[in-house]
């Protein structure tokens, strides 16, 4: 409608997306929940952000502990090299294979034939750990999605993301299924996105993602996604957009843009009319044809 949400509110609203029942950030404890320290897996070993295809070609070997040692290649393989860093921001686990088969089960599966199993009494699944510099340009948020199946009457699972700098925990986020939305004995989604907000994340900060099983019931997890989002598109050419409300401050004329050749105006209207911003779908490697700079920049 007419703009209802001012910038402050938008910020709050976006931040809220990451706020489930048990979210806390920057060391603040979530309402009625245990301390962040209590919700932390024992394994603090850091996984290196390596990933390489293995023989079956459908999976990608990671340095994460089982059952996260084999990610689905199709969704996890994309990486971007920036200087000496290799960003790999997307991970998907279908749990069809693992170096430790005791952590996957063929009892039930949301897709394929197997799923991750968190056995009764096991409080934490292993953590997926990354240096922020290995997953994001500047880390803006971490999104986690999974499908879970349990007989428990109350959802026992909390998705947890923590951010640590040296020995200090900078933030701890958690999300679980609301009791009124929980459906025992059937596959159900649980998604969360945890926004870093005003937190200035350094490349050396450690980002941990793990599942906290607060009950003693058996839980199955399948098709788990982890997405590390950057504040801006990593590797994309940066710059300042041309402000239509302050055209005098701009120095660069626009390219003619057209989707198809026939969609444009009279080609004589613009000195750059021969430029077509939009590349051909049939030749995607051409990418975009960009406006030739006219402001003296290379």
């Amino acid at each position: 409608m007419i703009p209802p949400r001012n910038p402050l509110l938008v910020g709050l609203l976006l931040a809220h997306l990451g706020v489930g029942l048990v979210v806390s950030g920057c060391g603040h404890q979530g309402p009625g929940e245990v301390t962040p320290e209590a919700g932390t897996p024992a394994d603090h070993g850091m996984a290196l952000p390596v990933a390489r295809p293995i023989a079956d070609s459908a999976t990608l070997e990671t340095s994460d502990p089982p059952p996260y040692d084999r990610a689905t290649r199709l969704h996890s393989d994309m990486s971007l090299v920036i200087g000496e860093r290799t960003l790999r921001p997307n991970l998907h686990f279908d749990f069809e294979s693992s170096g430790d088969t005791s952590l996957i089960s063929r009892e039930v599966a949301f897709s394929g034939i197997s799923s991750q199993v968190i056995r009764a009494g096991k409080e934490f699944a292993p953590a997926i750990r990354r240096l922020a510099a290995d997953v994001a340009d500047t880390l803006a948020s971490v999104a986690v999605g999974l499908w879970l199946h349990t007989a428990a009457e109350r959802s026992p699972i909390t998705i947890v993301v923590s951010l640590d700098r040296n020995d200090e925990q900078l933030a701890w986020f958690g999300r679980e299924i609301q009791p009124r939305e929980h459906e025992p004995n059937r596959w159900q989604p649980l998604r969360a996105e945890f926004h870093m907000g005003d937190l200035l994340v350094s490349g050396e900060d450690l980002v941990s993602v793990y599942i906290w099983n607060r009950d003693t019931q058996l839980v199955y997890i399948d098709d788990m996604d982890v997405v590390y989002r950057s504040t801006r598109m990593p590797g994309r050419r940066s710059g300042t957009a041309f402000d239509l409300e302050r055209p005098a401050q701009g120095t660069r004329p626009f390219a003619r843009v057209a989707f198809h050749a026939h969609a444009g105006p009279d080609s004589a209207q613009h000195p750059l009319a021969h430029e077509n911003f939009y590349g051909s779908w049939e030749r995607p490697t051409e990418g975009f044809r960009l406006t030739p700079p006219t402001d003296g920049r290379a």
Partner: protein
Amino acid sequence: MGTTNGGVPPDATNGWEGITVEDRFRIRGDPRDEPEHLDSLGRQARWSRNPRVGEYRFMLVVIPEDHFNKTSLPVAVSDISARENGRFVDPFWYWLFGPGAKDPQVQVLLPDERLRVRALPDLGAGVHIGKGASANSAAFSSQCGNSAEIGRRSAFEQFIHYVDPSTRFENIPLIADVLANEYTPADHDRYRCLCPADQMLRLRPMTTATPCATVRSDPERHSIELRNPASTYGSWRKENVGIRSRHGLAYGKYRVKCKLTRLLNESDMWVGLTNAIWLIYDGAPGCLRRPCEKGGYLSSYYGGEQDQRVPRVAYSEIDFEILKTPLYCPEKNFPPGFPQQLPLPEERNAWTYSTSDARTDRAGMITVACTNWDMACPAPERFGTGCQPLEKDGHIFVNHRWSENYRALTQKTEASDKELFGGDHYWFEIDWRPEGITWRIGPDLDHMRVVGYMDRSITEISNVQMRLIVTQEYHNTRWWPGTPYCQGLIPFPSKDLVGEVLEVIIE
């Protein structure tokens, strides 16, 4: 209520067969002459409390003359503007259930006949241009303008959006006919991933620079056409368009027959518009919401989280907003986990965003968002945050509020874009009552279905009179988290996006 003329005709009696009572009355605005409904010049602003639509009952109270003269009726019973113990007296209560009902010499007659009052504002009577619009009169005509004559006859005015700085976004410099399938979700993802930041255009949604150019009242068809104008090279516009009724009403069933523009193309790409049918307070003198009994309202629309709380506010809004965005509920399925794109020109798989399998909305479907702006009054017993179910007639309506200081409660359902905007017309109805609001849609008035329902147990419902607005408007998609398409990655329109309002009934 109002003025009374006539009385008992001299030859109306006929022995013991009774008499015929004839009377006439006029329903007028602000019948109690309440002091808060004065305009800035101290005049009674009857328009600020217009007569209500709906069904009126009649009651005839007969008292023998000598008994009437001996009985001292409370002033508040014979004069609706008077108060007793600080409160007005409902004459129906007084004579049917109160002290009047106990008087054996009083006869109360309730005829079956009822008066059905409804408003049928004529869409063909022109469009008035109000003071808030640009002074450019280049597009004025006999059907649209700011003349006194058009002001007298037109029931609608061109609505000029207030465009807040928070609506600013960056858009790709591309003009295309999305509805003709010139742009697809794959294109959106490609631009999102690869278009350099310094090639973007920074702008806000715009309002018309030429009033009357984008709204057209048709006296033959009794309709009003709305046009979001096409962009041309050098004139990049995402321009909102809309109309607003010129008379506010409190409560009623607002039924709008319209054919608004399609929102999706064949590839499920969104054109970027939100079609909206909504009510907004008209700022009339004396029009404040009933007090928020607990906690107070947030005092202003734009005040943010730290806004102060006050007992009463004027701001009121009830919306249909229809656009491409996912459902927020159940919470466990939100937000969609779109992948982080990587700008690898050779790897299309790295560009996927809206084309990924993370989507939770369905192809061909748009979301009908029904919203009541309650200014975060926490008084309702079930006031809360997150997703909250509300049962009505065996149907569960799931409400969503972002936080305790969020000023609106929303319900969302999916509907087919083709069904709502692909045919000759569709009906949208906001049934606003003191105790609840019901949103209905349907192909005709005999086949309406409920898509939203809220009551006072979960949200404070306004009693302030409001005006009807129909718009096709561009929103910053940051307002709608989880939306698969970003407003700035949707091209400027190469053709006008046309909608038409065909009929309005308020009853």
